[in-house]
């Protein structure tokens, strides 16, 4: 249990800081924590995943948007309340090679997850530009923090109630020329658009996705997305442990929520039609025992531990993405 050590309302959101030195120590930008919600009598069993918005002095900060029952409960936590939290979870944003200028793109409360990254990049000597947008001024997030770390820094709102009127993609189109890597956190549509922009610009783009998670630790398989692996094949990858950060060019955004026929194992799903022997089109080759698990290690750049060999550029992806090695 961790104690809520700070609390403030930020427009439509609530920022909570809770005392959790172990998590604060271990956390990397892009990771998340998972809160049990509703207290001891709760009918809501599943933890809520929330991006880490920053750490310091043994505290972990998060920005909560009260939406359904769980986030509303979290946003209502008072100072001093005890909350059951597990983390840090997931893979962080991979850091670029020295000197690479970075462009950070946030949408809504997604901007919060970029603050720690911006600080880390600045500390590493990188140039950092940032764009953050929301539907309206009250749904902007972490504007002062990003403003202090990033230059140029552009704010957009759909309704013009703060910053420029319009979408983040317009600002991204202007700023991407100066960038060597793009990081994005926000709604799926924004991630997809920014990812396309990065691909078009020929630079790596990393996105932090948000899928429904039952466990947050990789055991349940609820949080999957179709992600293209180093071998060019698409697999349903768990966004909690293989993500939430993925190479944007690897995520098949258009196919999220569907079962594309070419996903590994999709051929085995046809219940009534399934032939006794696997069809020739999808031979089941036992994976080489000693090799890295292609299900687990190829969907995003590798962070921490011994780095795997650099993945070959995917053969079947449009845009001729240039994949660069990113050092941890």
């Amino acid at each position, binding site marked *: 249990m961790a104690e809520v050590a700070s609390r403030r309302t930020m427009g439509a959101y609530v920022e909570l800081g809770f005392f959790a030195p172990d998590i604060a*120590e271990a956390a990397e930008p892009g990771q998340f924590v998972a809160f049990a919600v509703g207290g001891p009598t709760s009918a809501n069993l599943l933890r809520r995943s929330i991006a880490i918005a920053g750490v310091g002095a043994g505290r972990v900060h998060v920005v909560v948007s009260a939406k359904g029952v769980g986030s509303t409960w979290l946003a209502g936590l008072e100072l001093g309340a005890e909350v059951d939290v597990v983390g840090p979870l997931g893979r962080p944003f991979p850091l670029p090679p020295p000197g690479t200028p970075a462009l950070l793109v946030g949408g809504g409360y997604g901007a919060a997850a970029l603050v720690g990254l911006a600080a880390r990049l600045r500390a590493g000597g990188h140039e950092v530009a940032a764009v953050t947008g929301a539907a309206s001024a009250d749904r902007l997030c972490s504007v002062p923090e990003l403003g202090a770390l990033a230059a140029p820094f552009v704010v957009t709102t759909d309704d013009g109630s703060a910053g420029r009127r319009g979408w983040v993609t317009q600002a991204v189109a202007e700023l991407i020329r100066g960038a060597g890597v793009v990081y994005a956190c926000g709604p799926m549509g924004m991630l997809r658009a920014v990812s396309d922009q990065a691909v078009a610009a020929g630079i790596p783009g990393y996105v932090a996705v948000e899928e429904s998670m039952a466990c947050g630790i990789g*055991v349940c398989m609820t949080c999957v997305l179709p992600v293209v692996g180093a071998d060019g094949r698409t697999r349903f990858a768990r966004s909690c442990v293989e993500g939430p950060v993925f190479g944007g060019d690897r995520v098949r955004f258009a196919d*999220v929520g569907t079962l594309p026929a070419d996903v590994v194992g999709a051929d085995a799903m046809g219940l009534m039609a399934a032939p006794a022997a696997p069809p020739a089109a999808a031979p089941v080759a036992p994976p080489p025992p000693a090799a890295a698990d292609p299900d687990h290690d190829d969907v995003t750049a590798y962070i921490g531990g011994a780095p795997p060999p650099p993945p070959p550029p995917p053969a079947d992806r449009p845009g001729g993405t240039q994949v660069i090695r990113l050092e941890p």
Partner: protein
Amino acid sequence: MSIEPTLPAPAEALSVPTVDMQASIGGVPVVSPVLTASGCSAFGQELDPFFDLTSIGAVVTKSVQLRPRSGRPTPRMAETPSGMLNSIGLQGPGIDGLLAEDLPWLAQRGVRAFVSIAGTRVEDFAELAARLRGVPGVLGLEVNISCPNVESRGEVFACDPVAAADVVAAVREVADPAQPVYAKLSPDVTDIVSVAAACAEAGANGLSMINTLLGLVIDPDTMRPVLGGVTGGLSGPAIRPVALRCVWQVHQALPNVPILGMGGIRSGLDALQFVLAGASAVSVGTAVFNDPSAPARIHAELADALGERGFGRLADAIGYAHRRPDPPAGRHSRGLQ
């Protein structure tokens, strides 16, 4: 992995048991009556940071089929009151992947694997059982018969005593004799005792019960079923009374058939209820999503609960609620507690 749970590390939490917690899965001794539940702990690796996997009875692995499977499209889950629906669609690496990677990982660490197998034909199950013969670390097989039977218009094996028995007999015939075979029953039947009896008759060394209940949730915003698969399996504390009833009925009818009880177990007292109703071991499923260290915590809590009630051995508590005389009338004591 950089996971640093703030939950108490269960290795420490395990109090030195004054109660003999040795349990048995179909005759094979295990150090704890608490296991994971199939599909709720993948192949064990991800739980390693949270507790000592060798301290529980076994990791029950995600049901594996002959070929790798993608599983169903998302959304694959919906939270429900005190439970959840899932429609994963048995995403997994297939038996080759399991044998090449997951079972060796567990075996190397001395973790017992209770391997759940699934298929859509009787022969699929038999082939899987054959492939698992003599594999190190494999404690036994849990036969997930809550799968549609392609030879019977997709009717689920577990819903028909004959089909269920066919699968069990085929598996028992080819399976490693040292590996107990458990049939995993579905609660979505008119008469679970008849399915249980048919499986026992067919040679099942034990019964796992229960699998999820078929459920559905409609999204009030999209006005469509939430799940990509339309219906899904209901699990969690919500279903615990149904699971306990199934265990009670089957133990009553077949007192000598070992039962691996599951369905909404979240605490040691929940596990105790299953043991008292007749389960000789328990699986912890959905509760792991709430508390990744739940299996080890529940082992410790169950040991304490048994000790507090004067049981020296887990074995003595199995089915005890059937033997115990009715308590005296008048349960509530006001004030003078």
